[in-house]
């Protein structure tokens, strides 16, 4: 499996949970903490992120940055992904 990870801009996350339901790996959950806006924000809750960017695509607040393993074998498709975003 491809290894990936996500970073959240937690200050702008609104805890809508759309990324959570969009993640095929069920890697995401809501934090018990709240941010300055008063929202419980999203966070990675499992170590199985593949960097598929689904969560980032559906995030209405553009709060997610996604990183992925640049396996030489996967490089090409990885590039593609960047282009399609």
């Amino acid at each position, binding site marked *: 499996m491809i290894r990936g990870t996500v970073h959240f801009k937690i200050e702008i996350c609104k805890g809508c*949970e759309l990324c959570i339901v969009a993640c095929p790996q069920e890697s995401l959950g809501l934090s018990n903490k709240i941010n300055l806006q008063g929202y419980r924000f999203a966070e990675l809750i499992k170590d199985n992120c593949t960097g598929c960017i689904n969560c980032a695509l559906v995030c209405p607040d553009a709060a997610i940055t996604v990183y*992925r393993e640049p396996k030489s074998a996967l490089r090409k498709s990885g590039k593609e992904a960047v282009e399609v975003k």
Partner: protein
Amino acid sequence: MQINDSIEGLELVYQRPATLTDTPFHYCPGCGHGVAHKLLMEVVEEMGIQENTIGVAPVGCSVFAYHYMNIDMQEAAHGRASAVATGIKRVLPDKFVFSYQGDGDLAAIGTAETIHTVNRGENILIVFINNGIYGMTGGQMAPTTLIGQITSTSPYGRDEKLIGYPLKITDMIAILPGAFYVTRQSVNTAGNVRKLKKAFQKSFEFQKLNKGTCFIEVVSNCPSGWGMTPVEANKWMEENMFPYYPLGDLKVPRTEKEKGSNNA
């Protein structure tokens, strides 16, 4: 739980486009406007047309789009975005011009402007966010509100006998010769988001070629106006909006069709 979110050895594959400003969206949690904004600006960034793009957002929840989209923009009066966009495009025919309008704006008060702009084949992109409600003013019935849907001005559910059926304005638009590319997309899943983005891309490409009006309906949500959580709202949208407003292309340029578009 200790989660490894180190990026060591990983490569950046997705980030907030630089064509968005740093200002956080004022939209309610889960609102589809955010997704649409983001995709539009991604396309502007990727196509390298930030310097040549002018947007128009009228009153509606997205009235503050200019706080977020890092391009020259005009705010328009309620319903008049496509007239404003016409004015801009006519005097700057080489620039990319789009309007970004809600269903109240485009399909109620702005019906005449919408239809005539498309009929003239104004060479612009019209983005039509159909969330079936007046979001900004607090959840009143829109022309696209579904039968039986409860809003603050249809408290007993929209009754077609009193106010008519939800207006499929996109279907009407599609029969106009001035409309070059007409499609209906959504924001609910990663797959649909990709398709919507593709639609934005195509539209700007067509605009460059002076093809006429591109019209993209985005079936969207309004968790606040609908009184639902974002997740519920997306589900309700899939179950209720999509059957009435089926996603897919309503009008594709012939060559596109022949090429066999993978759209919808």
